[in-house]
């Protein structure tokens, strides 16, 4: 009788367990491992088997996985913050103070959320660079590149909308400056800005709008695109690293996803989480005094990831600095995988030996030339003064833009005469422009003082 009861009770536990997890958590045989990958909710985003070389850490640096880790941390800490935060100008800042002083682990949760969000921008850019410099955007992965770039923009949008929520001086004025960039979009700039702000300037309606975008619209959109993106990664197969001059790898060295890939991902996620928590424990998210619309800081700077654009505005007419040049760059990013290619270099870092040298050269040139041009424009170049009879949109907009475009085209032609391949030339131009933008961002963040004058940060 008791034996029958024991058997019956055991089968019930087993029944419940099986109803949740049909496969063993740690499958032993290869066949079970393959089945576990396919039937598991999370693991099924992976193929059952992967090319062993694709697991090489020095190829991916785990950046895509790290983005998923950061997004998970953001979702969890974001939900926790929702319990405390009130999106109104009267209460938002008090919520921040309460988080820092009254709520158990409130400060840590806010720090984790803040730093994860900022890290996501950096890691997202690094992931994009990794994909670019290994040519992993080439067919058949063109559309996945488009989705990746779109998600990068959404990550920035998520950061930007979240930037306002603390409602401190930093937030208020950064958003005021940031949204003013939108005004320069011809025809639709003003109504779009007004729609986003909920009025002519940053206020209560802006906070509500940004809150809704930050906690619902943007995360859901990212989730939707990311799901598609990851599915396509699986369907298009992982790009596989190759050595220079090596033929595309045949699918012979394949291993099961469990445990080879899953173990790496798990350990990497734990290490990254440990580093993130360690950072969040010791470094507080910035919080200045409560927002005061009557007192603008000098200088009033945009969020750090927009400082490159704000720096551009100091040198170009707004239509070109805020719209034309960034728009051209973005169009180039989207068009990149569809440009004509003259070699299959997927999986080869920087394509070739010449490509590597060219990349290093253009990175240094991007930095050096940008610094030189900023100094020239600051202390000598005065196009509006030299061409006072032209409207500033021409003298300080179209003329310098045309000069830069012409220089880039001639430079590309020059590289062609040196027998560089098309893909190497694309890489060279991209590298140059990327490092130029990073240099502008660094100058904007660290080398601009009162009145946006050039200063040395250590003085």
């Amino acid at each position, binding site marked *: 009788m008791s034996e029958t009861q024991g058997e019956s009770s055991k089968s019930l536990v087993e029944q419940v367990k099986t109803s949740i997890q049909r496969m063993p958590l740690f499958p032993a045989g290869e066949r079970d491992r393959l089945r576990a990958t396919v039937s598991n909710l999370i693991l099924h985003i992976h193929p059952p088997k992967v090319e062993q070389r694709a697991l090489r850490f020095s190829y991916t640096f785990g950046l895509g996985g790290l983005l998923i880790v950061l997004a998970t941390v953001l979702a969890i800490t974001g939900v926790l913050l929702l319990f405390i935060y009130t999106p109104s100008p009267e209460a938002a800042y008090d919520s921040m103070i309460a988080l820092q002083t009254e709520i158990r682990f409130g400060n840590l949760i806010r720090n984790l959320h803040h730093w994860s969000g900022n890290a996501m921008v950096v890691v997202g850019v690094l992931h994009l660079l990794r994909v670019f410099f290994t040519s992993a955007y080439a067919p058949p992965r063109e559309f996945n590149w488009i989705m990746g770039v779109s998600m990068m923009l959404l990550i920035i949008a998520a950061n930007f909308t979240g930037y306002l929520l603390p409602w401190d001086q930093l937030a208020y*004025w950064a958003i*005021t*400056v940031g949204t*003013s960039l939108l*005004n*320069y979009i011809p025809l639709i*700039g*003003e109504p779009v*800005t007004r729609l986003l702000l909920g009025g*002519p*300037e940053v206020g209560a309606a802006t906070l509500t709008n940004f809150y809704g975008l930050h906690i619902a619209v943007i995360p859901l959109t990212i989730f939707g695109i990311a799901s598609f993106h990851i599915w396509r990664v699986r369907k298009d197969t992982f790009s596989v690293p190759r050595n220079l001059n090596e033929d595309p790898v045949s699918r012979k060295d394949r291993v099961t996803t469990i445990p080879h890939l899953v173990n790496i991902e798990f350990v990497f996620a734990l290490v990254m989480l440990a580093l993130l928590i360690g950072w969040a424990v010791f470094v507080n998210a910035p919080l200045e005094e409560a927002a005061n*619309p*009557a*007192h*603008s800081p*000098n200088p*009033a700077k945009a969020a750090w990831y927009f400082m490159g654009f704000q720096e551009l505005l100091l040198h170009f*007419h*707004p*239509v070109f600095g805020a719209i034309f040049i960034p728009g051209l760059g973005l169009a180039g990013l989207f068009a990149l995988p569809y440009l004509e290619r003259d070699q299959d270099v997927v999986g080869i870092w920087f394509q070739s030996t010449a490509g590597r040298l060219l990349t290093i050269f253009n990175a240094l040139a991007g930095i050096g030339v940008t610094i030189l041009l900023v100094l020239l424009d600051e202390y000598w170049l005065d*196009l509006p003064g*030299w*061409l*006072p*009879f*032209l409207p*500033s*949109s021409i*003298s300080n907009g*179209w*003329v310098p833009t*045309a*000069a830069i*475009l*012409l220089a880039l*085209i*001639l430079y590309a032609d020059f590289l062609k005469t040196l027998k560089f391949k098309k893909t190497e030339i694309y890489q060279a131009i991209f590298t140059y422009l990327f490092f130029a933008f990073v240099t502008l961002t660094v100058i904007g963040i660290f080398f601009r003082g*009162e*009145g946006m004058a050039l200063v040395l940060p250590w003085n």
Partner: protein
Amino acid sequence: MVKKIIIGILALTVITSTAAAVAYNVGKSQAAPLIAEEPYIAEDIPASNPVRDNNIPHEASPLVEAEGIMGEPFTALAQIRGFDTTGMNVVFETGETAYIELGPEEYWRSQSVELRETDIVTIEGYANEEMYHAVSVTTADGEQIVLRSESGQPLWSGNDGQSPGGGSQDGTHTSGSQGGQNSIQIPAEDWVTYTGTLSAIANGRMTIRLEDGTSISFRTGQPRFFRSQGVEFSIGDQVEVVGFYNNGSFSAGDVVQLSTGIRVMLLDPNGRPLWAGPGNSTGSPLPTSIPAP
């Protein structure tokens, strides 16, 4: 083919603009000898004249006593190169160019002294940073246009600088009418606020396109006034303007650049245009660049 067309357009832009800039600057630099060749100038500028850092010659003047209140005084000979509605561009004998603030055109044109391009004139005034404000302009014939009182107060602002202005103690704003009339009191309820997009900034005026599609235009002084306040306005900027209507024309008291929140005062409590320079010995003007409320 398309690439060649694009390269052609870009190259044409760069080459023509470079040529135009070179031609303009060469033209400017060649203007200096024109003055130096004038015997009139050579006789009237003593060799011992002090020379400022920017190489603009000036000599001792009663205005020196007021230095620190109105700016650094100067007297210089210059050739007129052009006019706009608030002043004139000149070339000093050193070849340096400058913009001289004269005040509203209707005021100095009404003094029956004709100023023409290429005329050689003696300018007495004072300099603040890169802004030059004329107290008087004397032609080669000895005719003189007087623009400011000895205390530096613009005569065209309606206040001679000797009497205190109305201020806003009684809850009213005071506005200077441009044209030599007395200060007028503008009740607080008559002040209006407009928000719009900057559609033009030239000749010492701003034009703003309002949300209903209409535009307003008002006097602001030269862009260098804004630069001296640490703010640059660009076409397309969102701005807020507070001002009033006087005889059907709009006068702006202050303008706020909404993207930065920086407010630039255009009129002081006495209604005197601040872009015309400090020049009021009765007290220092309000700070001209303050954050928006």
